[in-house]
């Protein structure tokens, strides 16, 4: 779906830049699912994740004129806005978001079986450590897109992915990660 929209992107982008919200929505809609997944993992709260995606969409709409680059820049650009929105959500005063009943048990309760060690290890990572893993392994972004989303160089992105992966499994080699 995203590829299909990307093919029409130049026309949609022209319309969106001219102020057509429908065109912008058509551009952004295929990205809402990965954006939500990114936010849900960073915030560990599904309702807050949807709030963050909504807010990021509005900001992307307002900042559309700042979008630079080729045809494939839209996804990392939008995901970087989502990640920033998540950071802002997490910077709220520590007591301001206390949602005990809203935390699904499965989010923090280790599962039975073989995957529980990895689950536990992922929960021990900070949101910033999880971010490159989500982008690369979960959303399947190539290294250069991860780098653009994180606003760092590809080699730095590779390093951050590897470092976070090693925090999950200390015996991982570079070849096993990439």
């Amino acid at each position: 779906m995203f590829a299909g929209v990307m093919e029409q992107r130049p026309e949609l982008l022209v319309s969106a830049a001219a102020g057509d919200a429908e065109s912008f929505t058509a551009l952004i809609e295929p990205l809402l699912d990965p954006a939500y997944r990114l936010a849900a993992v960073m915030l560990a709260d599904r309702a807050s994740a949807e709030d963050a995606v909504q807010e990021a969409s509005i900001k992307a709409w307002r900042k559309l004129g700042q979008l630079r680059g080729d045809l494939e820049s839209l996804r990392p650009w939008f995901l970087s806005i989502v990640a920033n929105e998540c950071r802002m959500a997490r910077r709220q005063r520590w007591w301001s978001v206390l949602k005990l009943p809203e935390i699904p048990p499965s989010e923090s309760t280790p599962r039975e079986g073989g995957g529980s060690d990895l689950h536990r290890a992922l929960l021990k990572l900070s949101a910033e450590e999880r971010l490159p893993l989500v982008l690369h392994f979960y959303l399947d972004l190539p290294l250069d897109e991860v780098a653009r989303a994180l606003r760092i160089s590809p080699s730095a992105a590779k390093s951050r992915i590897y470092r976070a992966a090693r925090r999950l499994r200390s015996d991982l080699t570079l070849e096993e990660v990439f």
Partner: protein
Amino acid sequence: MGNDNFRREIGHVFDEMAGSPSSALPDRVRSSLAHVPEQRGPYWIAGLAAALIAAVVIGVLVVANPLNRPANTVAPGAGTNSSPTPGPTPGPTLSPEAPPNPQEAQFVCTGGSAILPEYAQAPLPAVIDAVRTGTHAGYDRLTIQIKSGGATDVRATIQTGATFTRSPRGDQVTLAGKNGILVIIHNADLHTGYSGPADIKTGYASLVEIQTLEDFEGVVQLGIGVSGAACFRMFPLSNPNRVVIDVQNAS
């Protein structure tokens, strides 16, 4: 394990954490976008106006000092940098700056967990300088006091049984009690400001033991042994910053 296996396994865990977005999300975004196009104007004008207004307001406040009080006034015993001496003290009371009625937070029981998100992206880790316990009518309380720093993401998860895994050594330890609560604090440090015991046996009805499971590379894990059903609530208090975990007494 190859790249594909690792990718598949990690993707599976992330899938479980994230779930799927609600079907209403696209409509919600579409609707919100439909109401903002008029705001896509020349923002620098609005920004400049806002900056000028803010400068005028700050200038007036600085000159007039309407509250007429000296700067740096700190009430005795208040502030995040106070309380240099950890040790047994009475249980925490609700400070004026605490959120309204934090103790109205509901107790969560079997299979439940609670999260206090980080409140700042501070470069320095949260330095824990006191771990206190107390018993109250209906619940026993654990208070974790944070002297300085930030970026604290606190998770507490109930588990069946009181056996925990210590990290990084990986061995297991069984605390007193039938069930447990695992508390994970990210970007925190229990060895700089805290000099109390790593294992506290309380003798209370519900919260019977607390033991440090990890204090390594910015992650602090505490295991709590609970005598009965592990029902707890977690909330923060301010001045000084504290994380409070109340374990409900079995009725």
